[in-house]
């Protein structure tokens, strides 16, 4: 990934991400989040994560965000004002942000470049490579995910049915 691509993706990403938390209307927030997710998916493509990019769109943009929109519409959530009454937390956020930026600065100094495209394994990021690892090395987490999803269904049904 060269610098042009990086900035062409990173700057819109940050802008839409800010809009997610800055827009007063939940519907627009959700849509900005969808755009963030979509841009991230494109970003993943440049990081040789084809399968993950597709997943990002199918699961995140196509399913999770639809659920968000659904709930926003079902509850008829109106826009709220941005003026916060949570003063203390605002300061905490700013301090945390500064610390994080400092860490990032440190990171930048001792950074090394990513592996060249050519030195990657040939099938890096493809479905085959992912699949063969997922169902061998990560089999247990995979099965546990199934149980987690089951718990989610049961929990959500119990909750939503009052």
């Amino acid at each position, binding site marked *: 990934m060269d610098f042009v691509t990086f900035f062409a993706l990173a700057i819109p990403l940050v802008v839409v991400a800010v809009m997610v938390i800055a827009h007063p209307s939940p519907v627009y927030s959700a849509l900005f989040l969808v755009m963030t997710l979509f841009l991230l998916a494109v970003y993943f493509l440049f990081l040789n994560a084809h399968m993950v990019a597709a997943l990002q769109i199918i699961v995140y943009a196509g399913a999770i965000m639809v659920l968000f929109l659904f709930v926003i519409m079902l509850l008829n959530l109106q826009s709220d004002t941005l003026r916060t009454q949570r003063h203390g937390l605002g300061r905490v956020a700013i301090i945390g942000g500064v610390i994080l930026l400092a860490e990032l600065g440190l990171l930048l100094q001792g950074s090394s470049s990513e592996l060249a495209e050519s030195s990657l394994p040939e099938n890096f990021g493809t*479905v085959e490579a992912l699949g*063969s690892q997922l169902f061998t090395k990560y089999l247990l987490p995979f*099965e546990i995910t199934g149980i987690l999803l089951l718990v989610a269904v*049961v929990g959500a049904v119990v909750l939503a049915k009052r």
Partner: protein
Amino acid sequence: MDQYVPVLIALILGGVVALVMTFASTMLGVKTHSAVKDEPFECGNPPSGSAWGRFSVKFYLAAILFIVFDVEVVFLYPWAVVFRQLGLFGFIAMLLFVLVLVVGLVYEVKKGGLEST
């Protein structure tokens, strides 16, 4: 990355088509306003206020199942591709996974989560 170039081209082209169509009527069509026309369509009755009210949450229950099975589907794709390498072992692993989720489906159906409304 080269394989995604056509997608980009198509995205731009599709965007242009969509843009042209979105604004075609704005550009070409006439615009008139009247009090009655500017009401939301409610079968010719005086409108009873904004439609943005709360709506039945029952629709949410189908959406939950969707999200769970969507995750299952995306797990199934890599499995399907490498299934021939995995063999019996992979079959049993996926069978367990699917069965666990089917339990969820059965639970929701039994609980009436997919009932008519």
